[in-house]
């Protein structure tokens, strides 16, 4: 029997966790002699106060949606994919190859091509650790972390020695040709008469990310593969009984997960930088873990959590720019949010559950009349 109504589970628990994280953050800001209220105002106005701010918030959120979905899908099969960082980096390589070496007639075709390449490159990078776990028993947490480093080194090598244009000092590819430039939110919204900042990096990839959320939801809760994946995640012994192959599920899940992480490159490499640079992922792969944790591995939760983290990223950047609050404090605030929404979840949940139980008892003064099965 569920102790709490669903709305409390889905909204109340994360909300209270967030408020607690905010209170502690405020105390820290006070302690270093700054005004927390002013800081919050600055964050909100910087991240949400203008279409420019929104443009950045949504740009970051798009990144986090992809990496968050990647972690969430794997987590339903109880696989902990820590390798989003490396998979997204490899996705960037796929996007760069697609954009540089194929003459696309129109951005929409380029987008499709880049989606395929980013997905395949990210998927391959996740498939190797998956195979090592399924066949050789190497733990996927360890191997995906190691593959982050391998990806970084590999990209470093390729950018410096292979893709760097002759004469350039910068370890980056050449700029992508005009035909691959994706429309920004400014371009997308203009026909509807909505004016949106031209300078902000948010682009049409946001729609791809939202579509990915919907497709992941369908995959997990409406397809046989999703069913098998969840069954395997809940109980490997039961999955074996049902004839679900652990090898197949591990491989397919990680390929989907890696592909999703790879898709992030559409946003940052193709949509924003329009060339592949070193360290293009900038930690979004790791933020994806926090996003999936806070979103309870549900695509809708991931969507919301990604926007929240986009806000924290953009608001934090504004803080660092306009106040003497050091950049490190932003990391502290982000860490507090992760801590409270992820790790300290039970701290909020337990008292809430007790309150709901007490309320229910008060409503039904004689619970023994209810035909409940006593637990042993």
């Amino acid at each position, binding site marked *: 029997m569920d102790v709490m109504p669903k709305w409390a589970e889905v909204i109340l628990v994360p909300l209270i966790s967030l408020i607690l994280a905010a209170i502690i953050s405020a105390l820290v800001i006070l302690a270093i002699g700054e005004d927390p209220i002013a800081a919050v105002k600055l964050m909100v106005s910087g991240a949400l106060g203008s279409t420019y701010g929104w443009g950045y918030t949504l740009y970051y959120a798009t990144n986090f949606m992809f990496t968050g979905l990647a972690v969430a899908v794997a987590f339903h099969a109880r696989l902990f994919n820590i390798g989003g960082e490396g998979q997204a980096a490899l996705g960037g390589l796929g996007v760069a190859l697609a954009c540089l070496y194929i003459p696309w007639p129109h951005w929409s075709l380029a987008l499709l091509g880049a989606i395929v390449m980013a997905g395949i490159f990210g998927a391959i990078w996740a498939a190797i650790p998956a195979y090592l776990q399924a066949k050789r028993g190497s733990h996927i947490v360890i191997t995906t972390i190691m593959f982050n480093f391998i990806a970084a080194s590999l990209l470093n090598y390729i950018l410096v020695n292979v893709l760097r244009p002759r004469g350039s000092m910068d370890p980056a590819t050449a700029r992508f040709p005009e035909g691959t430039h994706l429309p920004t939110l400014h371009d997308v919204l203009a026909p509807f008469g909505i004016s949106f900042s031209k300078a902000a990096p948010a682009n049409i990839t946001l729609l791809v990310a939202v579509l990915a959320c919907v497709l992941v939801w369908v995959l997990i809760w*409406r*397809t046989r593969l999703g069913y098998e994946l969840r069954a395997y995640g809940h109980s490997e012994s039961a999955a074996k009984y049902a004839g679900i192959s652990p090898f197949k599920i591990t491989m397919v899940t990680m390929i989907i997960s890696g592909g999703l992480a790879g898709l992030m490159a559409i946003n940052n490499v193709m949509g924003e930088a329009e060339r592949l640079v070193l360290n293009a992922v900038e930690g979004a792969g790791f933020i994806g873990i926090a996003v999936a944790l806070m979103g309870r591995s549900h695509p809708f939760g991931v969507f919301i959590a990604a926007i929240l983290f986009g806000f924290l990223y953009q608001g934090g950047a504004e803080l660092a720019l306009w106040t003497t609050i050091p950049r490190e404090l932003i990391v502290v605030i982000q860490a507090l949010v992760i801590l409270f929404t992820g790790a300290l979840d039970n701290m909020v949940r337990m008292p809430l559950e007790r309150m709901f139980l007490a309320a229910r008892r008060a409503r039904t003064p004689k619970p023994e009349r209810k035909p409940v099965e006593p637990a042993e």
Partner: protein
Amino acid sequence: MPATTVAPAIELKGISKAFGPVQANKDISIRVMPGTIHGIIGENGAGKSTLMSILYGFYKADAGEIFISGTKTDIPDSQAAITAGIGMVFQHFKLVENFTVLENIILGAEDGWSLTTSLGKARKELVALEQEYGLNVNPDAVIEDLGVGMQQRVEILKALYRQADILILDEPTGVLTPAEADQLFRILGRLREEGKTIILITHKLREIMEITDTVSVMRRGQMTATVKTAETTPEQLAELMVGRKVLLRVDKAPAAPGDVVLDIQNLHVTDEPGVERLKGINLQVRAGEIVGIAGVAGNGQSELLELLGGYARGTGTVLMNGDPIDLSGKHSDGQSRRARGIAHVPEDRQREGLIMDFHAWENTAFGYHHDPAYKSGPLMDNAAIRADTEAKMQRFDVRPPDPKLAAKNFSGGNQQKIVLAREIERNPDLLLVGQPTRGVDIGAIEFIHQQIVALRDQGKAILLVSVELEEIFSLSDRIAVMFDGHIMGERMPEQTDEKELGMLMAGMEVPQ
């Protein structure tokens, strides 16, 4: 304390305990007189274990008082219970496998800084205890080398070493052969003679009748009756447990065996660490008969079911309706087995048969999720599965009949009915059933047995594995006994008895 005082060894007054909305114990009062064996019987989920956990300090009661030998005693933790002279022998032993008997016994009760002195002291006490109560255990034997019966004695010795006057045994015979159970009862009798008080928790009526002086019956968290064992009957106790009249034996017509459905020839199975679990099994199951496999748990029955169910690999020949099935290749998985008409109610429904966090309707499709009836285009037809689940729940009397409830929220019996409904309604040629009524209440046992017999009467082959001899006798048309990966022999139920099967189960050759 002298045994002549009239104060009860244990008296519980008005104990209540709730877990969330579930009232596990409600206003329970009980008096256990010193020097007696007091049985507590009840269905799974009746609250027996909760009550004993309160007595042993694992849970704190919401209300009520505990008196030990007439003195009101608070038991906040198990240390306090031990100090009060209460010892507990759990269903699953809590022993360190690679320690010796002696080391296990002093574990947690070491005194002084040097282990040598406490070991020496313990050895002396242990020898004295063993002589006093007739427990033959070698103090230097390593636990993992001992059989379950011996391990249980170590648990009893552990409690006695901590000066327990009151011993609580939780389902002690679940893992024992009939002979080992008899030995245990002799030890318990001896302990009673020496003035110890024993509380025996069980759901087996036979044990209650055999050994206890007094018996208390629990139902739905309440104590429904306490009676002198000599003045009651198994039928009366069953009725008190369930709240209605219960058929203790299944009514079934004689079997009419037809063609051989399952033919197992020289089957070997070696498990992951490389231990040979099945050492050349030969067995046939015909249409329209129930073949029961008796044996103490861990003698290869599980591996046999797993192999036939498609998730253990083996060598040998298994014919299903005359055609061989793949034992180690590409088609040795659960999906292929189901396609061949083999349905499987696994031994452990919580680990294998069900996904406990899935809704009942999701569990109804489990293993059959590729069925076209559950399909709608590329997606699963969840509405169809839910409707199917609702119908199955009606036919199998699953309570509550709510497809959207998670499997873990059903009682053991209702969980089993969900599995049974799923497997039986596939209309299989062969049904594998492992421990069909383990952890299932008496009322549901009757229903489950009837369903299995009904399937047999439709001319299906049924292979039953159970560690409950009573169940084997009441369901089987033919009995095969397994020991150490071999079939020790086959018997017809009407031509054998528990004693003969017990000897076969212990690995002794018995000429027919």
